[in-house]
């Protein structure tokens, strides 16, 4: 028994040793791409502004340059603009996403499992999906008591479709034999959902959430242009009106960075919960 344990210990140590060296290698490769790509982006930005400001009549554009933007960042952090925007926009995004998941996943499961439901809802869902979430804004403001709720609603509207469609598509790919085996072993209907469907399509749900999060993060900025006095959308609008272009560019960079971090978290979750090979 102890011999077996020792052997398997050695084996697993060997395997994990390999994993670590492989991981280090791929991390090195990835970071070259990561910093290389960023460098190209910032070089293009810097060059663009550099050439525009060659013309003396365009000299006010120098505030849009990377240097000015990065110099403005500490100030924006210190005066609380960035932390406050992170908090409020983050809250709205989180609530909107939660709603979208809470509604989108069950709808997706119904679409994937029940044929007539899928057929009945196909046209209306495809129709609604194509309506820009922002076009609901005037209606949302009338329907909901405050702008806050209206913005959360807009985010949910934007995010619900990718979640629902990804869930349905994932379910359509589920091997029907998995249900037959489960039934054969005495599974109850709810076991099909909790033990088979959900783990089988976690990958697809998370992929849908990743897409939804991208759309939601894009929608939240214009949604915050109106009515509210907080969040990244408002901060951008505020910087534009007070002609603080360096702050505006600093906020644009932060918005991009936040979006990138959120997407990376999704990718990590997808990897963690995926049972797919290759």
């Amino acid at each position, binding site marked *: 028994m102890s011999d077996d344990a020792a052997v398997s210990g050695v084996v697993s140590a060997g395997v994990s040793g390999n994993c670590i060296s492989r991981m280090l290698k791929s991390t090195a490769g990835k970071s070259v791409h990561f910093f290389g790509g960023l460098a190209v982006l910032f070089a293009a930005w810097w060059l663009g502004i550099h050439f525009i400001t060659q013309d003396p009549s365009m000299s006010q554009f120098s505030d849009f340059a990377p240097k000015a933007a990065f110099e403005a960042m500490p100030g924006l952090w210190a005066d609380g603009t960035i932390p406050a925007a992170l908090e409020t926009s983050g809250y709205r995004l989180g609530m909107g996403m939660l709603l979208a998941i809470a509604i989108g996943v069950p709808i997706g499961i119904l679409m994937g499992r029940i044929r007539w439901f899928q057929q009945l809802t196909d046209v209306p869902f495809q129709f609604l999906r194509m309506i820009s979430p922002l076009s609901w804004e005037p209606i949302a403001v009338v329907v909901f008591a405050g702008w806050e709720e209206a913005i959360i609603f807009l985010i949910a509207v934007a995010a619900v479709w990718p979640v629902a469609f990804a869930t349905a598509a994932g379910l359509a790919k589920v091997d029907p034999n998995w249900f*037959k*085996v489960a039934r054969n*072993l005495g599974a109850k209907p709810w076991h099909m959902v909790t033990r088979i469907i959900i*783990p*089988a399509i976690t990958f697809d749900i998370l992929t849908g959430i990743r897409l939804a999060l991208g759309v939601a993060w894009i929608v939240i900025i214009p949604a915050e242009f109106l009515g509210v006095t907080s969040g990244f959308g408002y901060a951008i609008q505020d910087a534009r009106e007070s002609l603080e272009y360096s702050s505006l560019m600093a906020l644009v960079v932060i918005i991009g960075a936040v979006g990138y971090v959120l997407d990376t978290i999704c990718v990590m979750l997808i990897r963690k919960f995926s*049972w797919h090979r290759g």
Partner: protein
Amino acid sequence: MSVRGTKIEIQGLSQRYPTRKVPTFNRVDLVSPPGEALAIIGRSGCGKSTLLHILAGLTKGTEGRILLNGTEVAGPSPRWVMMFQAPHLYPWMTVTENVGVGLTFARWGKKEIAERVNDAISLVELQEFAQANVQDLSGGQQQRVALARSLVMEPELLLLDEPFSALDAFTRAALQKDVRSISKRLGFNIVIVTHDIDEAVIMADRAVIMAGSPGDIVHEMDVDLPNPRDRTDPEVQKLRARLMATFQEAANYRKPEVALAGAVH
């Protein structure tokens, strides 16, 4: 692990589909005593697989009934468990989790599940793969996991639907022997559906041949051979030849009234 077998009584079982003129099979009667390993042999399309699905409670017959130790089969139950042609394991679960899945459906306690799963994994000799990802296993190992997943329920009856047909000859032979010896050791019944005469000779105590349209049991033969059975044993070869001859004769079988109807045309 200890199980007892069950007396299987198939009484007047018929299966017809509304879209088809001829029933798949008509009024089939069959009895199998506790602990027997029964092989149902037949060509594809003779209804043998449908019969097995009805035995498992996964499909309903149009007429007749099936009694297991006097209880009518009305649906799936851990008492009668089916093993399919492919293992159909859950790729997001380890070997251990796959084997224990049926017990978690039945709300067993963690400790009991661990014990029984352990026993079942030892029975199919997969101890060193207990925590492995099932996607890393070979086809034969995966089918062993599926076998353990069935055995862990301690069924009275194990139904096998051509379970080894996708495996290579060597692995198939090993599993055929193992399933038979495990069933004899634990005492449960086996009903195996196959078109492989060798499989029937190696695994069964009795073989019945299904043929015709509608399908019916047209012959039966005791497979009275010593254990463990070896393909190269002359006794086994002799019985195999006899069963083969009977099978081929049965391939030309037609129910009298169907043959008559054919003659009129």
